[in-house]
């Protein structure tokens, strides 16, 4: 079955600076340097699951899904459902431990609409975190929406 309308697409960007493989490598190295400074914030309790925001300095970088039943992080893109009874304090402790064991994967994805690199951070066998880095691979790009969400409903 085909969709009734074609998907909305932006006009292709005119690249003022071509993407280079070295930029992706720089982005990965930058996240490696930043990883020891990542800290977990106050868990966000949803009706059916808990997310734990990860902060770099005073800005949120991304959120990690927490599996209350397995008492471990969940893969990116697969938030658990039905773990509303999980304890936010316990979620924080588990994610703090997981973040210490996390490692930066050796390649990045480029997202044209956001004009940035996305560097995956893995725990054991799966990705738990996406970190956005500027096109030149020199600056971390915070998740401003998440930062505000945490500040409004919790503390850093």
């Amino acid at each position, binding site marked *: 079955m085909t969709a009734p309308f074609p998907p909305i697409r932006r006009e292709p960007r005119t690249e003022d600076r071509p993407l280079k493989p070295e930029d992706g490598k720089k982005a990965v190295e*930058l*996240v490696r*340097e*930043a990883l*020891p*400074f990542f*800290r977990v914030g106050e868990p966000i309790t949803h009706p059916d699951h808990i997310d734990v925001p990860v*902060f*770099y*300095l*005073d*800005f949120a970088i991304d959120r990690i899904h927490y599996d209350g039943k397995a008492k471990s992080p969940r893969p990116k893109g697969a938030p658990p459902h039905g773990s509303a009874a999980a304890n936010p304090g316990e979620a924080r402790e588990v994610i703090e431990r997981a973040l210490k064991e996390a490692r930066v994967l050796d390649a990045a994805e480029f997202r044209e609409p956001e004009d940035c690199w996305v560097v995956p951070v893995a725990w054991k066998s799966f990705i738990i975190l996406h970190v956005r880095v*500027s096109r030149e691979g*020199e*600056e*971390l*790009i*915070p998740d*401003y*929406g998440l930062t*505000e969400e945490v*500040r*409004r409903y919790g*503390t*850093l």
Partner: protein
Amino acid sequence: MASKGLELSGLFSKLAPRLIRAANHSERRLMLLFILTISLSSTVIMNDTAMLVFIPLVVATSEIARVDTARAVTFSAIAANVGSALTPIGNPQNIIIWHSYGLGFLEFIRSMLPFVFLWLLVLFAFTLTIKNRELSVERIPPVALRKTLLVVSLISLIVDVVLAEIGRAPLAFIFTLFVFLVLGRDVLRGFDWALVLTFAFIFIDFNELAFLLKSAGLMFPTGGTGLFVVSATLSQLFSNVPATVLLSAGKPEWLPLSLGVNIGGSGIVVGSLANLIAIRIARVGVGDFHRHSVPYFLVALLLSVLLLL
């Protein structure tokens, strides 16, 4: 709102990596740089905003470099309180005093400057007690700057101060609201409206209390060192903003009042909201905070009394 815009632009987070580099592996120098940066930043952004911005950096650096986190956080909170004392827009108690006494922006700064300088010197002296260990941190990656938001916030801040100076504060509010509505809506969403309401209630409640105390014949000193010591002590008991509202109702001399409630923000943790924010973010114990803050408060209070005499 303009301060919030500056914070969300990432300006201060952008400064952080430069500080680490400038510290050149020295723990003591890093602490001095933190104090200087936090106190300077607090003169334009509120002291509690400065804590939201800098405490995560102080904690992260302290943990990585194995520095005493409680001491670093406490000195940072004191730096925010001291720096914010300099300008009329540095903290809520200064805004109250600035408006209710109709003082000039520069007049306020000129009068506060010698004392803020003294308090900073005392804080620097306290940092000299830190053993100068070599730090292992070399580099902290930078965060992207939101240039449009930075420019808009800086312009708003300047326009606000100018409009307030010429007695058009309501116009400053409308201007800032409109500017951020058009160019930085997330600043309005992130702005702590509940805090404004809290201060409004504090103002109403403590104004009433001042009226009741006056009716009961209880009078506070109206100037000099007496007023300074009383305002610092009351700030220690129930925080410096309520103390300002309570004491300013009787229209005493503004300078001893301002000095008392500003130095009263250090010491006991309830002295100012910035302290509470700092220990909450950093998860530092109250006892650990007091171990460093109370001696500082007592020394700074004593030296200020000597300067006032």
